[in-house]
């Protein structure tokens, strides 16, 4: 069907234009604007100062901003701990779901609901579970004699992380399990039969067949979850508000506070650009890894 390749191309441009135009207007143009802002001093509380050009001044100040480095550290900590837990638990979950047929619908719903509810709601559920007075976490810990007095979870940095990490694991492990399950179902069952014949045990089958063949799916999960965890905002905004003090404040929350609480748009833009650059770098790194891992291409 060689007919009308030119008119096809014309039609294609016409059809693609609105969507691409919208994305350019609401995403690309603002991104450029953020970059521009980050090179200026722009304080919405001090409009009479105007917006003087300061070059890389905002970035230079970031280098000496302890709160910025702290926020970066909290974000890295949260990302590494929660993604690692989610990957391990998700794999266990996926292995349990694989080849189980009875009650599949129930499991699927149980898995999907935490994923589908608003993050804000998930955060509130866990704040309630860990409430110092009404929380069931304290009731269990005191009741079983592990601690003598109710723990005031959100007053200490170390204990404040517990509900944050647990809430994230609760909300996103199901998603991880689903992606890994899709990967598991692509593995040829004949491989396991052959391994069985050769006398390989369950552990050997897991480490020699399942995990190597699941590598593309695992990488994919890593991409999605790291990029997502690195942008964490809703969960911590509701659970700890970044507190106590700023000791659990992630980088996105620091940027938000700088921008919309303190109205320091230039400086906040610089933080935003750093977040963008790190996310972009991580994505590139992973895409390279994915390519090397021999996964399917990035095109649908």
């Amino acid at each position, binding site marked *: 069907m060689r007919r009308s390749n030119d008119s096809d191309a014309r039609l294609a441009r016409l059809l693609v234009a609105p969507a691409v135009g919208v994305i350019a207007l609401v995403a690309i143009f*603002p991104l450029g604007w953020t970059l521009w802002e980050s090179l200026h001093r722009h304080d919405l509380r001090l409009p009479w100062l105007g917006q003087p050009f300061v070059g890389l001044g905002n970035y230079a100040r970031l280098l000496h901003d302890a709160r910025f480095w702290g926020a970066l550290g909290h974000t890295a900590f949260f990302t590494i701990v929660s993604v690692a837990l989610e990957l391990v638990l998700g794999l266990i979950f996926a292995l349990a779901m694989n080849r189980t047929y009875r009650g599949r619908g129930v499991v699927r719903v149980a898995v999907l609901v935490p994923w589908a509810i608003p993050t804000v709601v998930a955060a509130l559920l866990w704040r309630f579970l860990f409430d110092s007075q009404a929380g069931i976490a304290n009731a269990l810990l005191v009741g079983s004699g592990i601690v003598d007095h109710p723990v005031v979870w959100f007053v200490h940095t170390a204990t404040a992380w517990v509900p944050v990490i647990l809430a994230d694991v609760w909300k996103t492990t199901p998603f991880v399990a689903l992606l890994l399950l899709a990967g598991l179902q692509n593995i040829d069952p004949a491989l396991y039969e052959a391994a069985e014949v050769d006398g390989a045990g369950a552990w050997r089958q897991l480490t020699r067949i399942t995990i190597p063949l699941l590598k593309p799916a695992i990488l994919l999960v890593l991409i999605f979850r790291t990029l997502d965890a690195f942008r964490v905002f809703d969960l911590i905004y509701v659970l700890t508000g970044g507190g106590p003090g700023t000791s659990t404040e992630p980088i996105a929350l620091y940027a938000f506070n700088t921008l919309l609480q303190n109205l320091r748009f230039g400086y906040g833009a610089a933080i935003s650009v750093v977040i963008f650059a790190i996310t972009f770098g991580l994505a590139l790194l992973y895409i390279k890894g994915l390519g090397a891992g021999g996964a399917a291409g990035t095109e649908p």
Partner: protein
Amino acid sequence: MSSALRRIGLAVLVVLIAFPLYWAVVASLTPEATLFREPSLWPRTVILDHYRALFTTRHFLVPIRNSIVVAGCTTLFCVTVGSLAAYALARLRFRGKGLILGFILAVSMFPQISIVSPLYLMLRALGLINSYPGLILPYLTFAMPLTVWLLVGYFRQLPPDLEEAALVDGASRWQSFTKVLLPLSVPGVATTAILTFIYSWNEFLFALSFTVGPDRQTVPVAIALFRGQYQVPWGEILAAAVVATVPVAAMVLLFQRRIVQGLTAGAVKG
């Protein structure tokens, strides 16, 4: 893993996953005094006071209406405009196609926070802070790439034979899209719409940044900013959490299989 062990393990996991939600439902039906003094795994005295307060003194119907309008309009716009683009990207040959797909994928990975401040200045200049368009426009940043990406996947799964037959019979490209492909992809379009709606319903950062006061707040913002006069109003907060969960839980119950397909397809191909 033996199958009995597997089944028990799964049952334990399901209970663990369901527990926080179950607990929220129980607590939302329990009088606050009992809640703090003697928590119990099942409600001893069921009251609906928290729900009543939610819809009377808290005016929770306002954020629900706002969320429905914003998520609904976003979904409608994205699915309409997105399906046109997705058709071209899935079926037509033209230069720069790979570039556009890469561009859409890249934008879908954007951290929202990195465009909050210009969007704020833009909406303020247009007088759109605290308005429906002031939320729908920013929502397009994540919803449009999502819908296009998912729809391209669906359109590609359909065999091209039927359209080609229509073209041979003298139909135009446009006719083969609207008369042949679209009717066939109703399930795919519906799944895309459901996923887009869920993402828009749950969005928090933009809704928090671009609304002022309760008039245009969406459900997540309204819940997150619930305050009591003397103490945390847990009963009402949890009632609100349950109410906010009902629509998405209903969608999950009704469309579970499709949602799983959409999620894994979008991701595996992403």
